[in-house]
């Protein structure tokens, strides 16, 4: 594909630290190759800022191949920018036109405090996983892997949920800053597998409560989360989780023990 050069106007959220006041700052990005990725475009802008003696724009990134979940950015109001099923690092500049103005903001949510510029703290997600997002399987105590056949459709269903990369786009897109898609994906990934059944009730109760404690909002069925999820995880997992949560809550109330 032929490489075009783009001139763009960037409106970027700059915030020196977690406690400082932030603001939108305008930058001109000149001669950006259309084959560059969005983050490479920011690299080019940063190189210029450094050469001018300014501080570069801080943003999270690592694998730059759409799997680690470290990159974020709300681009023109949409987490991970235009295009379906992509993270910011996989977004390429051919998705923009010469002369475009691009608004670049952090993932905004009360539970994701800004650390600097476009970097947010998503450790609330780790705390939710710690509250039950696992199968307790002590190393060395596993049975043979083929001892328990799992029907392919069940394995595929679990896999579709397990594809979550924990980026937080679902939260940033939701008007309630709800983490329901993230939580449901893990609850259902593990809950549908036979080896995850033993802790199913504990898991859903623990994770949903940790989510509430972290300050995430609730789900009001707008499906923005599903629309922006780079791994295209379906919001139907939320429905499934709500049912599991209700069942577990009743059991908890009746049996009062797990």
């Amino acid at each position, binding site marked *: 594909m032929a490489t075009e050069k783009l001139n763009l106007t960037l409106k970027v959220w700059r915030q020196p630290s977690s406690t400082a006041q932030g603001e939108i700052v305008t930058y001109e990005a000149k001669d950006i190759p259309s084959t560059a990725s969005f983050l490479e475009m920011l690299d080019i802008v940063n190189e210029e800022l*450094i050469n001018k003696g300014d501080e570069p724009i801080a943003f999270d990134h690592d694998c730059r191949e759409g799997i680690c979940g470290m990159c974020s950015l709300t681009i023109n109001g949409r987490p991970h920018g235009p295009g379906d099923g992509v993270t910011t690092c996989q977004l390429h500049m051919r998705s923009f036109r010469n002369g475009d103005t691009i608004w670049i903001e952090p993932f905004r949510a009360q539970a994701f405090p800004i650390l600097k510029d476009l970097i947010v703290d998503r450790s609330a997600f780790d705390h939710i996983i710690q509250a039950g997002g696992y199968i307790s399987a002590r190393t060395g105590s596993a049975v043979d892997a083929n001892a328990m056949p799992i029907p392919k459709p069940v394995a595929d269903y679990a896999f579709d949920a397990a594809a979550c*990369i924990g980026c937080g786009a679902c939260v940033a897109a939701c008007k309630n800053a709800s983490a329901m898609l993230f939580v449901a994906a893990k609850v259902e990934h593990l809950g549908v597998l036979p080896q995850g059944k033993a802790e199913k009730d504990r898991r859903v109760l623990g994770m949903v409560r940790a989510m509430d404690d972290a300050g995430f909002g609730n789900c009001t069925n707008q499906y923005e989360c599903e629309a922006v999820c780079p791994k295209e995880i379906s919001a139907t997992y939320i429905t499934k989780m709500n049912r599991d949560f209700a069942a577990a809550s009743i059991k908890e109330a009746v049996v009062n023990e797990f």
Partner: protein
Amino acid sequence: MVSDISNDMPDSKIPSGPIADKWTKHKMDSRLINPNNKRKYTVLVVGSGLAGASAAATLAELGYKVKCFCYQDSPRRAHSIAAQGGINSAKNYQNDGDSVHRLFYDTVKGGDFRSREANVHRLAEVSTQIIDQCVAQGVPFAREYGGLLANRSFGGAQVSRTFYARGQTGQQLLIGAYSALSKQIADGGVEMYPRTEMLDLVLVDGHAKGIVVRDMVTGRVYSFAGDTVLLATGGYGNVFYLSTNATGCNVTAAYRAHKKGAYFANPCYTQIHPTCIPVSGSYQSKLTLMSESLRNDGRVWVPKKAGDRRLPSEIPDAERDYYLERKYPSFGNLAPRDIASRGAKEVCDEGRGVGDTGLGVYLDFSAAIQRDGEHTVREKYGNLFQMYEQITGENAYQSPMRIFPAVHYTMGGLWVDYNLMSNIPGLHVLGEANFSDHGANRLGASALMQGLADGYFVIPSTIANYLASETPGTVTTEHEAFREVEDEVRQRIDQFLSINGKRSVDSFHRELGLLVWDKCGMARDEAGLTEALQRIPELRAEFWENVRVPGDNANVNQELEKAGRVADFLEFAELLCHDARHRKESCGGHFRTEHQTDDGEAKRNDADFAYVGAWEHRGVGNEPELHKENLEFENVQLAIRSYK
């Protein structure tokens, strides 16, 4: 001839006895620590990838007090996550003739006879337990309709022993280890420190007893003391700047340990992966791998004529050169990585490369699509085709992919004995960061296997061999050794911030990467390496005079983070080139153009180089000192590796 194990080489502690019994015997002979005493020991684990997370979780399950550190914002993001293709295991579920011994044999041969037999055999043995463990954790491996696990084949093997989870095997395995780690964090067994970068190792009376870290959010430099330190900090592929590694991957932890006395073994064994998306411009920040599993169904070709600029669809079959199938009929497109990469370089050097830059070859799926249907191909590789389209804007169902080799993995690493302990007592090294199992070339789907083997099954058994003779908790951060190292780290940070030169950190990194790729990449020679060894110190000197690191150390400062890593790469690159220049043979990922057969294959020199080259640091800019661990092959016969 190389003499027997050099006197000054530490004991590799390889157990005696037949190869198949060594690991069992070693476990039986290993020290034990009773459960009540385990909780008195503090283990510092640096890195949270497959090796680090699995070790941290398992050691905490056993009762040790674990502190785990990673530079990412969450342990779930370590770069193991990006592994696509799969994980090998000698399960023989396919009944196609696989066995522990065959996996052992394939790995030693694939490593071009430059790995330790005993370590590789242990890896093959525990490979079966890894799959059991991962399935128990809920890792959604691919399954057949009957519900049993599916397998596929990978480069360098003629059996199907690779387990996979679509093209996201690394992600699923890492999430498994991360969830085990998360449970231990919740239970209080592990204290986790994300966004925390290890900047130096602390030795007390010659033993590794702590680390100095920087809090990447506040800039605070502080220390942790422990009874032992585990480095699981990955490889050094980013010395080339462009690689398939994450942008944050670095050599700092391993190199800092090296400067404190740890031997660095075989740094010249670097793996260039044959199937990556070609470079498109100078702004490029990383290279993206297309899983090797694609070579199961994709056919690699270039035009027969040099300079043929026709579209691939316009080139008839008779005018295509399927060069891997032609040169290696029995392995064909599944020839090992080093051989497939050199094949691509060769045809591009002949002017037969494709794409705008001429640095690319076709990976063509039309035969597979015709044979099995697009649906089947999509089912197997859908996410890879999607990734290819996102990056290149091209649809690979309709026209062939263009691929080119890129730096992917580093077989070299810190020297370790059979217990995974370096020559510094108390410093253990796991996963890609050590040198131990892959020799001069790693086979596909073996990195995940090694990382998890080290973390879940090896270190939990061997760590007590060190700890049992140590009184727990004797060293605290009050010890003066911590003050000294902290001061050095702070001074270095201040120095970066005060140079205030004219060039960005990235510009130095890019220049270093091009130089190392050019002189110490897919093909190396004496003259080029000598030139690199002259040029690297010059570039390093310029860096320390002319780098510009904006901002301060009171906050997130990504330029400062990069400066520290690039400063270490600028020293490490010299070590890499020294090793490459001294090894006057071609083996695996190390190809010296002076040492090749008449038909261009790598020519090993077993008489003079069948050893591990372990280097001791002798001061920046000084020649490192070589120590040799002789490699003995008692179970696999030394032979010329042939995939024809």
